[in-house]
């Protein structure tokens, strides 16, 4: 479980030297999984998540200027993932409303049915949240950003982050209760 913990900024800080290929590999190994999970929380479709994260990697690494600042690479990647997820949702919003896509069930054998049910429940609750609330919750509690970082990443004020966070948690609780009840 600790291996899948969200990568922190200092994990990619020491990779200043080296070619961009090595840097790409290092960044990939360090952050790809956590970014994919971040996207999975913001989106629903896993293949879309892969596309989004890969697109974020491609964008960030295509701009050499961004890669030359290793301490900011992860921030750029996260920001790009959030923006891409947002635009993906926006793009799909009509189609999703009309034709809800069934969640791909990624439950593995070692996970119990109970956990899978709970996971689906949480995801359903997350999807029912406002987009801003969802983003704040994911960034704040999954990526372990501070509120200031969340505000910077989402481009909103600190007060908005606090408001979205508290209301998001409350709404999530309501949703989970409703799903359980």
């Amino acid at each position, binding site marked *: 479980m600790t291996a899948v913990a969200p990568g922190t900024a200092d994990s990619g800080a020491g990779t200043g030297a080296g070619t961009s290929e090595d840097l790409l590999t290092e960044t990939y190994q360090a952050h790809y999984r956590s970014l994919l999970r971040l996207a999975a929380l913001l989106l629903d479709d896993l293949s879309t998540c892969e596309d989004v994260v890969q697109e974020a990697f491609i964008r960030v690494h295509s701009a050499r200027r961004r890669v030359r600042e290793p301490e900011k690479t992860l921030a750029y990647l996260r920001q790009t993932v959030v923006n891409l997820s947002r635009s993906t949702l926006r793009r799909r919003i009509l189609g999703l409303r009309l034709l809800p896509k069934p969640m791909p069930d990624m439950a593995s054998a070692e996970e119990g049915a109970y956990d899978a049910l709970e996971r689906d429940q949480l995801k359903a609750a997350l999807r029912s949240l406002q987009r801003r609330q969802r983003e704040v919750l994911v960034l704040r509690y*999954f990526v372990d950003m501070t509120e200031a970082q969340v505000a910077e990443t989402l481009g909103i004020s600190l007060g908005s982050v606090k408001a979205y966070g*508290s209301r998001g948690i409350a709404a999530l609780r*309501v949703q989970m209760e409703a799903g359980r009840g």
Partner: protein
Amino acid sequence: MADDRIGVGGTGGPVDRARCDRPGIDGARLDRPSSVGSSTDGLNTEGSKIEGLKAGGLNTAGLNTDGLNTDEQLVRVLLQRAVAEVQPDPAGLHRIRRAVPRRRAARRGAWTGAAALAVAVAIALPALHDGDHLGLSGGPGTPGAHGATPSATPEGSAAGSDVVGPNRPPYPDVSAATGTGSPSGSVSAPPHPAASSASTGGVPSTPVAASSTGGGDDPPVPLCLRRDLGQGASRVGAADGEGRIYGYFTVVNTSGRTCRLGGPGSVAVTGTSGTDPARIRVTDHSAGDPATDLPAPRPGAGDGPGLVLAPQAAYRVEFGWVPDGGCRATGGVSPSATAGQSGSSGSGAGTSLAMQSGGPGGPGGPGGSASGSGSGSGPGSRAVAPADGASVAPTGAPPASATPTTGSTSVPSPSATPTTGHSAPPATVTIAHTPAPGSPAAASAVLPGACSGTVYRTAPQPVMAPAPTETPAPSVSASVG
């Protein structure tokens, strides 16, 4: 979403806010999982599940729990657990690695394309702008442009005040194209030619104004057209003791309007007889040159605004012939010519005029012309014969006076004829004055006995009243014969 907000505002809101304000207390609660269930009103069942999760292996001590209350911890665990099984596609790195250089190339290509586009636009825009002035886009543009063109063009030609006719049509074209529609284009186009001809800044008048020396100092007076200036006249005086011959051209503004002379015009050798045209030079008169009888050139006369000619006013271009004195060989016929001169003096009125102008003491000039007319059949006489010469073939006489109108450098029949009559070459030179607007020449003059020398000419000078001896008839232009 709307019901979510209701839920937030109703039940969850106050509770959460209260907890967020006391993180320390919540952090203390975190160590006692039982308190999660007891403290939360709506999350009792969730609390038990959290315990289950933690018992299932989630290490709470390893989590970053600073400052998070129980709900936040719960959300954190739930979020991480929800995506714990999400594993990256193993082909992801490979795909990214292939796509990054491609994306870089695409970005470079996009930048290159944008730069190329910017360069192309920077080049093409001025070109298109100039094209509008040339009327390239005005023609097929709108129906209004087509409708305005025919209505504007007759107006410009009928007004008679347009400076350059053929250059006119593109200009109303553009003005009509820039107009809004066909009605406004056809209405606004007719006044335009008059306005542009009056202003020197107009596009059609630019070529004429550029060729003139005094361009835009006197805008209201239009430039003289060639048809404004009628047929000119010339006067050739008698040669003095050194063979110098003085004369002048007079050109009258025969139109009914005042016009401005665009330039000094040209004085050129149009025909020679018995001598080489290359030996005749035409230069502007300047102070100190051998043509001392010419009026002193006014300083800056050629640079100032052109001479303004009222209706029926005339201007005069004086010239002086100064022989080099080195052509005795061709002029050696003078002794025999003098004899012929006397004999042919009565052959025609024109030749009698020539006698008085040619005069005595001419180094062979009078002899040449006289012998030609005396022999009658001599081809050289045709070049200098007067129009009313009785003894000369009628077809031969007019070319002498008419040929100068064709051009300054082309030497028609007069130049060809001396070769046949080489025995008695009448060395004469025909010079013609062409006014500033252009050909045809207004008047020509024959310099008798000129075989090698220089013609000094002056700038146009106003003439108050034309001399009574001059009539603007072509026949007088050949008065020296």
